[in-house]
């Protein structure tokens, strides 16, 4: 943990220096601009420039990071006294499986659309990470995205990504054509019936 405290504070200090530099940059089209010129407090009598506030905030970040480093050297903060590892074996594995799953989920959204990606992610999480029974995992990973689809795409017409064109044509377009024409009561019925299927599956799996 101690090493992580040093590394993090140093990285954040470097980020602060970079942000200070960026704050002093001028507009791309102004070739005569001198770096830092817009960080002044009163430029031509019209108050602080656009870089003033970000520059001093980044400076504040830098000073805070140096303070954190001083505290770490003096062992004044709990993480700098801790002998425990920053991420133990479990945490590393969890981060890889859950974080990796999340990244995979986001990539899938662009390929197969939001709802199919949710189904795959839920199935992965419940079956592989949660080790739940196959029937329950399958039911949940179908019903949850179905509910969200009915809520966002159909009832609220807040359209989510649909992935590659041929997937959109194969799955989402026919589904949209079917559900968009239905009255709200029928949609509610679909909602409840799918919920009942999920509840029955959960009960059978003794949850």
């Amino acid at each position, binding site marked *: *943990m101690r090493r992580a*405290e040093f590394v*993090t504070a140093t990285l*954040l200090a470097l980020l602060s220096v970079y*942000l200070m530099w960026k*704050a002093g*940059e001028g*507009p791309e089209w102004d070739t005569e601009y001198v770096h830092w010129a817009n960080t002044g*407090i*009163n430029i031509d*009598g019209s*108050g*602080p*420039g*656009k*870089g*003033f*506030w*970000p520059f001093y*905030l*980044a400076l504040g*970040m830098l*000073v*805070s*990071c140096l*303070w*954190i480093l001083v*505290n770490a050297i003096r062992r004044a*903060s*709990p*993480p700098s006294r801790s002998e425990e590892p920053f*991420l133990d074996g*479990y945490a590393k594995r*969890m*981060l890889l499986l*859950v*974080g990796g799953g*999340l*990244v995979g989920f*986001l990539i899938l*959204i*662009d*390929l197969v659309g939001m709802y199919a990606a*949710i189904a795959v*992610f*839920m199935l992965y*999480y*419940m079956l592989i*990470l*949660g*080790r*739940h029974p196959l029937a329950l995992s399958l039911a949940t990973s179908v019903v949850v*995205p179905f509910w969200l689809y009915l809520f*966002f795409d159909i009832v*609220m017409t*807040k359209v*989510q*990504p649909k992935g*590659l064109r041929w997937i959109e044509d194969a799955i989402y377009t026919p589904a949209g054509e079917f559900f968009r024409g239905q009255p709200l009561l029928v949609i509610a019925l679909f909602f409840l019936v799918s919920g009942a299927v999920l509840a029955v599956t959960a009960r059978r799996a003794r*949850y």
Partner: protein
Amino acid sequence: MDIIAALMDGLWIAVQPHNLALAVIGVVVGLFVGALPGLGSVNGVAILLPFTFVINEATADPAAPMIFLAAIYYGAMYGGAISSITLGIPGASTAVATTFDGRPMALKGQADRALVTAAIASFIGGTVATLFFTGFAPALSAVALDFGNPEIFALMLLAFATFVGLGGDDIPKTLFSIFFGLLLATVGFDTISGEPRLIFFNDREQAAVMEAVGASTDAVPFFDSVGWFSRGIQFLVLAIGVYGIGEMLWTINASRYKITMSETTISGRRILSGIAGMRDAWKGTTIGSLLGFFVGILPAAGATPGSLMAYGVAKMTSRNPRSYGEGNPDGVAAPEAANNSASTGAMLPMMTLGIPGSPTTAVLLAGMVIWGLEPGPRLFEDRPEFVWPLIGSFYISNLVAVLVNLAFIPLFLAVLRMPFTILAPVIFVLSVIGTYAAYDNMYDVWLMVLFGIGAYFLRILDYPLAPAVLAVVLGTTAEEKMRQSLLLSDGDFAIFWNPFFDRDGKGQEWWIAPVTTWIALVLIALPVILWAVRTKRARRVAA
């Protein structure tokens, strides 16, 4: 009389079927969110804020989305107690103090009594605070109408200073969090000059990156947005990242999916006997209700310190302080009344001054801005059709919350048995779909997940992230008010700290901004002063 008439109108609108339905749904969601360990009111409000955009469009009632979120906020305060008592781990940080006596009561076989005491105390705390709110809010907003740019900036400084002085977290890390949040708010276009700043990638560089990762906007729309950082960093991207993804990763790591629950049975008869048992808890309820509200008003204080403080005061003033920690009903009532009371108190500066004191109220404030409202003193003057139904809904939501809570305790207990490996992916999915629904942009979703993973690392190292969330919300206004003030003073900072600074050439004195600034400066310096006093005392003792 005006207030009473306005309140009656507000109550009438709040009980309209769509608002009542939203209050009930909000309370139920809040109860679940509050009861589930790892999630609190702020997580619920942040993750579900995108849903209110659709409520706003569907109902065309300005108060409806806020009624929904405020109901979640209340519900979560009630719900926290359920897991504190039956699981022994607080459902949310606001219910930490409830475990002190709630858990011993459950272990003695009095879980039902503890749950009923918590619910009734919460109801009383919430109602007392709403009465205070109704009385104070119009008066405070009337005073705040005279505030100019320097006053508002000084108040924002005070809000951040209280985090440093009273927050109780590592000071440099708190400061870093505040500066970082404020800086994130500056990304994008400068509101005054209209020029881009901190956008990191111009169009050419952005195209080069896209080509390097093999993605193009035509084939596979990774990062499908044009002009990444020039869009600015949206508040919800950070809030959902921190509270949806980061917090969840942290909870998974801390709990390792293992949570055990004590068995509890509850029936109508037990609820009635629990209500009769409230006579043993009236003192804690009174202390919690009164103290909670005033602690809630303070920025950076809010429901968690409010409930801890109420517990402390109840114990200190008790004739039998030793019974605390052994299962004293007063020890359950005091923090529960206080956290509900404080959550209403925290809405006071948010609604009247436009300055939120806690992360949850910061999310609520951001929501109001997105729905097209301008929080601040003018709200009471200009938008009574929003304000009074909302205040009316505070009363209604409290009543709904206590009824739903008492009626469905067995159901909540059943839900608490839901394995974390089902809950966690649902939260992740809601975070992703909510962010996309809010901004129609995959780039924001990627950024949200990156913030979440970053927040998880920082959380392990004890960096407080609530100040950053608050700072992102206030950042743009804070900069605007500061720059406009400095424009007025020709770049002289004395406008903030000197009451005799001549703002308008009329020789008038201005006291509010300087007094607020000085209090803020003292608060920032407080930890250093305390450290110096302690060191001196230690040296004297050593000598």
